[in-house]
């Protein structure tokens, strides 16, 4: 690295030269560090398969472009006409079967809400019980089941996405379900 020889002052120019010399040596040393490490990784076959990784990235980028293009058949968002078996299905499942709890005939698409009341679980059913005991029960059981086999200490099982009907605002239980201890 060359530094223009500025002042007439001998000490300042030799300082400048010295510091650029030192900097140059440090830089060289760092470069050799990196080269040595990369050489070792390459020679021992420890390098990652970057070609494959980049190919995957390219394919994904390409896919996103193609999917976003409105001229392509919008497979993702189009309404279904028939499935691969040639069948058509109503928006609410129409199969009828017997509830295994009470024996009544229930329509499949309404089975879950029926079962909830039938088993005495769920929001509306729980409201009948005194609040404090149920709240304690919910807290305790949630604490027990949460992430017994879920990974490592850093994680908490806060990350949950629900798909239920839009909850009633201000309801204690629905808010409780979203927040995490």
């Amino acid at each position: 690295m060359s530094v223009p020889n500025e002042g007439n002052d001998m000490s300042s120019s030799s300082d400048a030269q010295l510091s650029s010399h030192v900097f140059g040596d440090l830089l060289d040393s760092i470069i050799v560090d990196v080269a040595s490490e990369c050489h070792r990784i390459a020679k021992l076959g420890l390098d990652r398969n970057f070609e494959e990784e980049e190919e995957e990235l390219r394919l994904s980028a390409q896919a996103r472009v193609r999917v976003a293009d409105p001229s392509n058949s919008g497979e993702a968002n189009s309404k279904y006409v028939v499935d691969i078996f040639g069948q058509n299905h109503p928006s609410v499942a129409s199969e009828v079967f017997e509830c295994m709890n009470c024996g009544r005939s229930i329509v499949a698409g309404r089975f879950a809400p029926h079962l909830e009341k039938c088993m005495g679980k769920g929001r509306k059913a729980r409201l009948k019980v005194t609040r404090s005991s149920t709240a304690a029960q919910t807290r305790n059981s949630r604490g027990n089941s949460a992430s017994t086999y879920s990974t490592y200490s850093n994680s908490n099982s806060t990350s949950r996405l629900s798909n239920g009907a839009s909850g009633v605002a201000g309801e204690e239980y629905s808010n409780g379900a979203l927040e995490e201890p």
Partner: protein
Amino acid sequence: MSSMAKITHPRQQINGEILPQPCPHLAEFLSNNGSKPFRALQDCLRVKPPGGRASIRRDPKEVPRCGACGESARPRLYACITCAAVHCHVPSGPSHAAAHAFSMPPGHEIAVDVDRAELFCCACRDQVYDRDFDAAVVLAQTAASTLASSATSAVQQYAPENLRKRRRIDYKPWIPNLREQYLVGKNSSPLNGDVSDLPWGLRGLNNLGNTCFMNSVLQALLHTPPLRNYFLSDRHNRYFCQKKSNADNAAKKIAANTIDGGGNKSAARVCLACDMDATFSAVFSGERTPYSPAKFLYSWWQYAANLASYEQQDAHEFFISMLDGIHEKVDKDRRKPESQGNGDCCVAHRVFSGILRSDVMCMACGFTSTTYDPCVDISLDLEPNQGGSAKTGSTKSSHSCNGEADCMNSSQNCGVSTLMGCLDRFTRPERLGSDQKFFCQQCQVRQESLKQMSIRKLPLVSCFHIKRFEHSSVRKMSRKVDRYLQFPFSLDMAPYLSSSILRSRFGNRILPFDGDEHLCSDFELFAVVTHTGKLDAGHYVTYLRLSNQWYKCDDAWITLVNENIVRAAQGYMMFYVQKMLFYKASEKPGPA
């Protein structure tokens, strides 16, 4: 998908160890002197803790200088192994080290980089490698950072005691003998497949009322190869299990002298594995009209009482709960706790359970404490916002500079989050904050530490769960992170294995390792559970890969989709299966 051939290096593998071929000068040196000279260097190896780099100094305060020109600041100085003379080297320039090698009688070609403890062949002018030399360096590095009593076994510590080594055996497909053929033929009836070429087991699942969270996970599990094989091979026969449990209950009642009022419904015991078995039978029956997993829902709600509600269900939570349920039931029956890490306890763990390793290193002295934990999946944080406003909920450990570092690492696609990027961050050394000081056994005080995760044992099936849920305790709000995450169809987990992480911690020195790991680190994607819509009003859909075709499973609707749709989808849970399965000898004779 195009297959990329990995660049083959001229190296040999001995017991799984990777070893490059020595250059002729090194080979000559080794055959003349053995590895004694390398081990003799051990006294000169100086390691700066913690976890520091090794250098060669005869005297701790020595400043090496080139014997020929007196330079001490050149980027590389080499000490001849044979005569300890130090010389400088400039690649493509004057090299006093090379001059030394040629001027001396043969045998002075091999030198060692005094600052980096790397072997160098002055004749070839290239860095060379030797297993025994590396072993000596690693020993010096571990001695600097472990308790005196365990210095020698420090590197061998990577294996938890309860991971029994089982010998590998060749796969032998089961072929029924004549008697078995007769039994199977007599006691079963062939299924009438439909005329189409569509794969078995492809069947819609009716939404029973906001149960797409369950349907999506069930579809993935129904097509998880080892799980599917287990149930379709009748390894959990629900009739048997039911009969056995009724007999057990009856025996218990007799023993307790109770009078049975007659079929109390609430006493009907719940076995999620049985319900799983029933679901497999139904889905693989060849029937193509959608199936209603009503009994399954009923059983699961009995098991997971706190989650039994019509709304607000999370697919990942259901997945964990289900595996839990299968495990608990089996565990209760066995009545002895099996180690989950082995997966010997139940099919759920045999398929999904891996072992995570956590290393906490004291930043003052380098002492490292290691723990192992089984896990059935890996939950990953999406990267903190790059570019946008800096306010993200939560994670204590993310410094602002990390986002930029990620950007630089993923060379081209800066700004796109990737699964491998998340895994990189998952296994990156993380500085624990000063409010989380760890008690160091060596220093005997609480010190700031560095924590690093790695995967000790990969499961057969890896499930990655993306934490798309952000909770801000400050604003008492939760929101969903819709950001796209790229995930590969083919995934090599080798960089995240404990062996790789450990090796890189020691500067990528050659370490003696159990050779099998790198053989089973290739995975392929077979199912993706996606979530679209808002936090509490969304929809789950699963994409399945069967016979190299992708199918979209949207409750009752099964449709064919192009792989681009899958690549571009918003992944919430991704399921990967090992490409190659190896068989190990079972310890129990007969059907396992």
